[in-house]
């Protein structure tokens, strides 16, 4: 039943991709760069994050105002008929600070969307099971770390929402038996919220982003040719959407002065969407009507609506299902590539062509005619037959599939225009 479900989803996904190929050609089909897109967007987050870092001050007193300094709009006035910046407004921001923060904000949403789409595509095309368990499991880890880094980004602003999220997180962690209290204290760097709390969140944010790089390396380790760069058109499309979003909806803190100045302007209502942060946090004053971000705050929505215990249950089951997914159902692996020792010349063609790093070239015993021999790592072999096509000496075979059969299959697919 489950196997049939996977077969159906694979068939539907491939049909969708082929349909899009007819429009975009294979070269530019964005669905073929689903894995490269999150990494591509990640670079935007790194560079915009470094720029924000230049002005951010992680203390209780200055965190909100430093973010406000980066992103608030200049208040303008006319002096002698000329437009000038209002010198009385101390919160006038740095040029394009709101756009840089906008790129960081929309890029973060884009990365999460791209990551989830990547995961769904891999799952629906049944490319997550068996020998692919490591990329899948490391991908689940990446998703969790990305979520954590995103949430800590919201905390750094240190507005009402950030404070509420901290309270929810502490409640969530404390509900764990035995280690809950210690974890909650570790999260805020002590028994109570101090300046060290913001430093701790800042550490979480930067260290988490670094961990993403490490996990990406683990994610790629068994892939010979991972697609890490989208096509030019996909690059442009992604970059364009991020810029258009950051330009249309920059992450702006609309200051009191600005609102007063344009109080009679009907556009103020229209621009209320621009407000990226709430009022500065006041410890002890919990705001109940939090604006939940769909991509990063769904765990908090669960905690808010279900309570900490049920939230643990829902999230725990979801993570367990994701971790078990690559190991069920088990396939019969009776077609692992086999090397005929007498025929292998050690040319390395099969090893170079194997997409999953499943063939190692090892030295033969001294005195042999050839220096190297191909050795198949059974756990990594996908039984795809690429090595069979690569070998000019017919020295590697799939025991239950003759090379002529593979050739006939390839020709049939080419005839179909696949």
């Amino acid at each position, binding site marked *: 039943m489950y196997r049939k479900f996977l077969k159906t989803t694979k068939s539907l996904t491939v049909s969708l991709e082929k349909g899009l190929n007819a*429009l*975009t*050609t294979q*070269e*530019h089909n964005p669905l073929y760069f689903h894995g490269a897109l999150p990494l591509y967007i990640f670079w935007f987050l790194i560079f915009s994050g470094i720029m924000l870092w230049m002005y951010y001050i992680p203390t209780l007193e200055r965190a909100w105002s430093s973010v406000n300094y980066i992103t608030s*709009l*200049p*208040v*303008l006035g006319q002096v002698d008929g*000329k*437009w*000038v*910046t209002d010198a009385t407004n101390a919160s*006038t921001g740095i*040029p*394009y600070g*709101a*756009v840089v923060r*906008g790129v960081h904000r929309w890029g973060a949403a884009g990365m999460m969307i791209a990551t989830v789409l990547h995961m769904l595509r891999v799952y629906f095309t049944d490319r997550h099971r068996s020998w692919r368990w490591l990329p899948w499991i490391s991908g689940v880890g990446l998703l969790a770390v990305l979520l954590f880094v995103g949430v800590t980004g919201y905390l750094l602003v240190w507005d009402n929402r950030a404070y509420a999220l901290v309270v929810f997180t502490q409640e969530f962690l404390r509900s764990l038996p035995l280690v809950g209290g210690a974890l909650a204290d570790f999260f805020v760097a002590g028994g109570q919220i101090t300046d060290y709390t913001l430093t701790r969140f800042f550490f979480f944010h930067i260290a988490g982003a670094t961990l993403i790089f490490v996990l990406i390396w683990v994610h790629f380790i068994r892939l010979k040719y991972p697609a890490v760069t989208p096509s*030019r*058109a*996909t*690059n*442009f*499309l992604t*970059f*364009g*959407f*991020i*810029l*258009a*979003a*950051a*330009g*249309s909806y*920059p992450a702006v803190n609309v200051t009191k002065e*600005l609102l007063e100045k344009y109080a009679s302007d009907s*556009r103020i209502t229209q*621009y209320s969407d*621009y407000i990226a942060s709430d009022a500065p946090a006041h410890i002890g004053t919990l705001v109940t009507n939090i604006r939940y971000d769909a991509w990063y705050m769904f765990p908090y929505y669960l905690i808010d609506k279900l309570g900490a215990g049920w939230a643990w249950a829902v999230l725990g089951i979801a993570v367990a299902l994701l971790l078990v997914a690559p190991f069920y159902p088990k396939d019969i692996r009776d077609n692992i590539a086999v090397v005929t020792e007498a025929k292998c010349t050690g040319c390395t063609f099969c090893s170079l062509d194997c997409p999953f790093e499943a063939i190692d070239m090892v030295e033969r015993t001294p005195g042999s005619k050839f220096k190297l021999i191909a050795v198949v790592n059974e756990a990594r072999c996908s039984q795809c037959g690429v090595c069979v096509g690569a070998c000019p000496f017919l020295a590697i075979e799939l025991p239950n599939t003759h090379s002529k059969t593979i050739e006939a299959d390839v*020709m049939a697919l*080419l*005839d179909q*225009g696949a």
Partner: protein
Amino acid sequence: MKTPRNTFGWIFLATGLVIFYLLAASAIATELNDVLHGPPFTSMVRDHMPHFLNAALDAVLPLKVQNLPYIKYFNPQHLSTNDNPFEQFNVVKWMGWAFIVGAIADIGTAYLTRVKTQVEE
């Protein structure tokens, strides 16, 4: 084998590039207008510049954004930083759309110049 170029592909590419550079040029021109004509960035520099340089800049660039060529097609409100701070990031928005148009032109060109795979027995 050399990829045959389709005439329509070239037209598609040229149109895409023209739109791309038109959008980019309008965006940059608008921003230059903002930068060179005052707040919030360079008004202090302009105040200290010699009169003839100021006059030359004013002659090259129109005084108001709505005087820029084609601007009405891309920014119907004719607003810039000088007029409304909420509109100050239109330049970024336009650049974003320019990249999207460029991507579509690229995909269109690839589509129109695609080569069908043929298998010879």
